[in-house]
């Protein structure tokens, strides 16, 4: 069996379980992280402090030459990317003899794009997936090597799913690395481009609550998809931006006034803020983020908000 020396290109904590596994198995030659991921860089440097494994910080300008140099210097046999934001040129991905692979945190070809974790939660998929594909000239388009899924609970936040998919990625990368160690040509199949869907980086409209169109389940999914990276889903109240971090659907015995417009606050009490939704639905907001901090929703009353106020769609 050939000795595996792996270079890991990454930019978020999703890569940490894979990294730990590679360190444990003494297969990690170097880690490469974009400079703009500064908090993650610190985290990785701390993790690898005692290991002697180099952490290479790259920019868009120098990453190609840095990678070429590192692959040769550390005699890298296989490359893996996971949440790495720069597109690799063939002059880099063609270098490791065992190939270069991207671990994409979403099923392919159905969830191409930079943040499939967000979109899978927002779209209320029953399952979330990981796909490993060969790196080619474009993002997320290479031949598929391995894929697997986990159940996507309606309570999973972006953070929870990131952790779960990181664990799944570790399992799949373990299989991939074992196969690379066999010295074989790793089998793959082309993606069906007819089934490809590209999800762009989420914009303001994608992270904002639309009180007129969304039901409780859709809002909760959006809130979860925005937690913690955006400190919640965005809405407006009394000209103030509020991010909702946690909410639940309420089946209240109290009849909702048919005059209550979606977004109207029905009650504010120790349980939180109850809001009217379309079709006489009701949502209880329990935690929010405002400029003043992370607060229990009932604290919003201290800012002069009363039960007559309404959340506004941005």
């Amino acid at each position, binding site marked *: *069996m050939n000795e595996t020396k792996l270079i890991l290109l990454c930019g978020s904590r999703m890569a940490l379980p894979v990294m730990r596994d590679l360190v444990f198995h003494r297969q990690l030659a170097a880690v490469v992280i974009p400079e703009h991921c500064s908090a993650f860089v610190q985290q990785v440097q701390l993790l690898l402090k005692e290991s002697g494994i180099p952490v290479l910080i790259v920019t868009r300008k120098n990453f190609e030459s840095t990678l070429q140099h590192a692959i040769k210097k550390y005699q890298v046999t296989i490359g893996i990317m996971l949440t790495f934001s720069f597109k690799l040129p063939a002059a880099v991905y063609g270098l490791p003899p065992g190939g270069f692979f991207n671990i994409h945190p979403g099923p392919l070809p159905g969830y191409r794009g930079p943040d499939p974790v967000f979109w899978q939660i927002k779209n209320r998929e029953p*399952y979330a997936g990981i796909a490993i594909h060969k790196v080619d000239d474009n993002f997320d388009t290479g031949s*598929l*090597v*391995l*894929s*697997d*899924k*986990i*159940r996507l609970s309606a309570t999973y936040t972006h953070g929870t799913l990131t952790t779960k998919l990181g664990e*799944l990625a570790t*399992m799949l990368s373990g*299989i991939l690395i*074992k*196969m690379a160690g*066999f010295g*074989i040509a*790793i*089998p*793959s*199949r082309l993606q069906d481009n007819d089934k490809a869907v590209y999800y762009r980086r989420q914009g303001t409209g994608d992270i904002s609550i639309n009180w007129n169109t969304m039901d409780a389940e859709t809002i909760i999914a959006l809130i979860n998809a925005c937690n913690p990276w955006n400190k919640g889903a965005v809405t407006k109240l009394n000209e103030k931006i509020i991010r909702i971090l946690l909410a639940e659907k309420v089946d209240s015995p109290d009849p909702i006034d048919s005059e209550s417009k979606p977004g109207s606050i029905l009650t504010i009490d120790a349980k939180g803020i109850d809001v009217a939704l379309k079709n006489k639905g009701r949502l209880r907001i329990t935690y929010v983020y405002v400029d003043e901090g992370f607060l229990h929703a009932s604290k919003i009353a201290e800012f002069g908000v009363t039960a007559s106020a309404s959340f506004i769609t941005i």
Partner: protein
Amino acid sequence: MTIGLLLPLSNTHLGMSRDFVDGFNSLLKLKEHTTTIIIKKESVGLGGIEKEVYDKAEKLLVSDDVDILIAYIDEKVTAMIYTLVQASGKLLIVVNPGANHPYNWIAQPSVIHLTLQHAFLCWLTGRLAGTNSADNKEAAYASSFYDCGYLHSADMVKNFTVSGGNVLYNYVNNQAYNENFEISQLNDFLTATPDCKNILAVYDEKPASLFYDRLNNYKSSFSSRLYVSPMMMTEKAFELMGAGYHFSIEGHLPWQPALDTTENKNFVNTCSRPASIFSLLGWESALIIDEIITNYSGDVQEGEAIVEHLKKSPMAGPRGQMKLDAETLYYTTGFGRFNMEAGTLYGAVERITDFEEDWKTFSSLDTEGAVTGWTNTYLCY
């Protein structure tokens, strides 16, 4: 149609592959498919060398271009050939006794599983032990170094605990299965803890017979209630029984040769060799192939399309109705609840066919936390 068979060897169950092939061929012969099917076989040895399993699977899927691959391999090794299966798009039928199961049950779209449901049955037995023992919720756990390296062991203990039970003592035996086999340490515990009347036991049939025999010699076991794994209720497991045991034995078992159904009699009487759990798996694998040949009209190399067909096609097998669970892509079938009172020579078996809710609960439990186990395979499980 060309079928590839990946077959294992076993040091403990020497006839495993021969039995499997006998069951497989017997059903195909009965259904008059022998002239329409070409079978290509490869051995994977003990099944523990992943590279060997991969190479043999690759030979069958790529070089021999079989349409469907039936692989008698352990769950942990299965992942090593997913790349081949995903790349080829062909149907893979994973066969084993089911003592291991996935850590996360989400199915691969063209991979189906046919097992003896050992882990599920152990899980049910754990619950049986926990709920039966209303007056005494404490148990000792007994197994061998080898037998406890599978998830069925954890499943039994976990569900016992969930059902209110408490394991006070773990006894893991690492001896050879011969005249020197002894369980004195377990006896010491039982003697010192007379109120602990339940024993959860997980052994293969050979050590099971030795375990029962040795335990029966100790007064500490008198009036104990044993809750046991499936292989502890086979005929061989009771070969040293003599005049009966001082303890009762309960558990769940996938199949027994005497099962009084037309399909089982057909199976037992058609096989060339004495029917066994291995020929049963061979026969049931061939039933799946028969269903595909007879009622599926699509491309036989389109694994996902075949799976969709099989989801809607329950079959009558020796164990009862075989139904492909759409969520996990595991075949589920009926099983027996075994109960042998202390001092008796035969156990009563009640057939259970209403298990869907239990299966759903079991297969929705993801395995969390650190998991250890054997990396080689012991394919009687």
